[in-house]
């Protein structure tokens, strides 16, 4: 075998001998599972959106009534806005911090073990546990602010829209930055030092190296990490539900919560199903966009070495 395989340029293209049907069956268990609990319910929700049902009695087909109800509600655009707000801001907060910490971790050998354990703990806690803990901590009357006498901490964190959103993003970041930092750490350690050597000879400074070498080399990691982040934030429910339940008012009422409230609390399963379909469409759109970005991953990053 040659020491270095030729770039895997033939990676995604058609093999001269044609596809392998011998492997198809391997995909079947996953397919079946997914069909049963993913696709079939999806069709079910689509059908439900054309009915009127209060969740208790009979399901009545009702054409576009539920859709009209859902689309006419001003809460719908609002919750879409909230969802994107959360998604974008948490990405903006998490990605840079994770990359920086990841690079730091990659270089820093001492205490790596100890740090790693500590960093990972937030990820191990359930969203419910974290929300409850922070809720208690920032309680203006019984929390740290009161305990330490720091009045800045006694603010109405969860009672004011901007602050509540901030707290939410902070908690999400608290929980997930460690994970992404670890991913980036792994990616950075993979970067061949030759690149840095070469650039040093050309006179590049640390900052320049960071932007011209580090970042491009971890491009696919950024995409994978961002995929996880974005897909994850679209489906945030538990954290928001326990922390603010969409409040104050509707300041943190993301789309998933709006759907839940409409269906399970206002007994409007039809419109809730319509919102569910919208949720799916938004997700589909995002998946497509991310696929475009990540789809060129066939080239090996070692090309040209």
């Amino acid at each position, binding site marked *: 075998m040659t020491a270095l395989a030729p770039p895997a340029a033939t990676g995604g293209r058609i093999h001269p001998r044609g596809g392998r049907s011998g492997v198809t069956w391997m995909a079947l268990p996953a397919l079946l599972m997914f069909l049963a609990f993913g696709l079939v319910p999806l069709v079910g929700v689509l059908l439900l959106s054309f009915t009127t049902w209060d*969740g208790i009695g009979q399901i009545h087909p009702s054409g576009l009534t539920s859709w009209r109800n859902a689309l006419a509600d001003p809460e719908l655009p609002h919750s879409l806005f909230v969802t994107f707000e959360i998604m974008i801001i948490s990405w903006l907060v998490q990605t840079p911090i994770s990359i920086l910490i990841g690079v730091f971790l990659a270089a820093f050998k001492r205490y790596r073990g100890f740090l790693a354990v500590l960093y990972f703990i937030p990820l191990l806690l359930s969203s419910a546990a974290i929300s409850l803990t922070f809720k208690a901590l920032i309680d203006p*009357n019984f929390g740290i602010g009161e305990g330490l006498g720091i009045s800045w901490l006694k603010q109405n964190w969860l009672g004011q829209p901007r602050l509540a959103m901030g707290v939410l993003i902070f908690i999400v970041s608290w929980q997930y930055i460690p994970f992404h930092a670890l991913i980036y750490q792994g990616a950075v350690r993979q970067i061949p030092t030759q690149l840095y050597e070469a650039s040093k000879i050309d006179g590049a400074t640390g900052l320049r190296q960071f932007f011209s070498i580090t970042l491009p080399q971890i491009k696919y990691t950024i995409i994978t990490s961002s995929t996880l982040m974005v897909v994850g934030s679209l489906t945030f429910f538990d954290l928001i539900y326990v922390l603010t339940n969409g409040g104050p008012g509707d300041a943190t009422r993301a789309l998933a919560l709006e759907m839940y409230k409409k269906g399970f609390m206002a007994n409007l399963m039809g419109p809730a199903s319509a919102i569910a379909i919208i949720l799916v469409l938004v997700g589909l759109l995002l998946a497509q966009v991310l696929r475009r970005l990540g789809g060129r991953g066939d080239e090996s990053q070692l090309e040209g070495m």
Partner: protein
Amino acid sequence: MNDSGLSRRNFLGLAAGVAGAATLAACGSSGPSSSSGSSGGAASYWSLSGPPGQPYRQAAIDRFNAANPNSKITGTFYQNDDYKQKIKTALGAGQGPTMIWGWGGGGLKSYVDGGQVLDLTDWFSQNSAVKSKLLPSTFGAATVNGKIYAMPIETVQPIVLFYNKKVFDQVGVKPPQTYEDMIALIPKFNAKGIAPFSLAGASRWTNMMWLEFMLDRNAGSDVFNNVFAGKPGSWSDPAVLDMLTKVQDLVKNKAFVNGFESVVADQNADQALLYTGKAAMMLHGSWSYGIQVANGGDFVKSGGLGWMNFPPISSGKGDPSNTVGNPGQYLSISSKAPAAAQETAKKFFSTVLVDDTEKSGWVKSGGVPVLANSDSLYTGDDAQYLKDMSSIASKAKVFAQSWDQALSPTAAETLLDNIAKLFQLQVSPQQWVDNLNGVIGK
């Protein structure tokens, strides 16, 4: 082959073993535990958890099971807001409990419309002894379209203005006699760093109590009666706009505790604010007494807790004796349960739920039972409170049902949502009225 750690074989073996064990464990503990056809009429019962009620609900079930070992009742308890959602999911897919606990009114009506509950009118006619043991006023919320679909149980719960006597003494003020007095107290408490009113703003139905009383004291019961009757545009009465503006004024004047928007009633956090002296007053349901006894140490025992009916508004048209709250709690029987289970439920209704232990139990919980002739039991530490509650409930010219329970769940959700926004100053009184008018009759 890289050997650090798990080899392929070990991994596969581990995977298979784990998955297999997990599946077995999962299956072993499976099976719907609810009402679907077990032998001998075993029945299920869902209700709310926590003080003060849960121990007494469990006690009733235990009493019944001791006397009826062949047709036992299993009780499951959920937190308030959790329960409201859980019961709907369960009913929606035919997996509800035999006995459905609720607040009557609009919620009950949605069950009736869905064909989920038994018509008990005839049963009550045949069992007039049972009916006569219950206070007649409690049947209102159990009646839909002229028929009775639930049995009144537990306690009558008017909403009451509680106050911390110690805090009042500390600040040197007297309990208010009128609404205007009450408003004048706000700056006095704020000046001393004590919140005038505790409020569980995150739960919303606690905020609603304010609107209910302020509207009633201001304009009487007609407005809401019209809304309830489904008359279009009923919310457009000028008294409503006035009341809404007053509410927002209260918020702007910092009448409510800092951070009220995130205080959750289910955690009894609002009561904690009162009994720890961080707030001076609190408008809440009469069941709060039992919670404060349970959680507040010796706050109640040492005489720290005061209570009164919501004070009258000087220029208001409403009768000052009016009150609002839960005329009772209600237990319905699922129409989808097997016949034997339904019979067990009926037996439960006619025996344990109306016996003397039940009555004295609820009295001990700090509540006025729906069972008649409880007055003789009002003794001991809680005597004065119980007498006052009983008096408020029986002397009220109008005992209105809480709005979110009287209305349908759909309208109720819009109501609560808009109330939250009102307190958040996110919606104007006129917008509030328009939004609510939009769901009248829905």
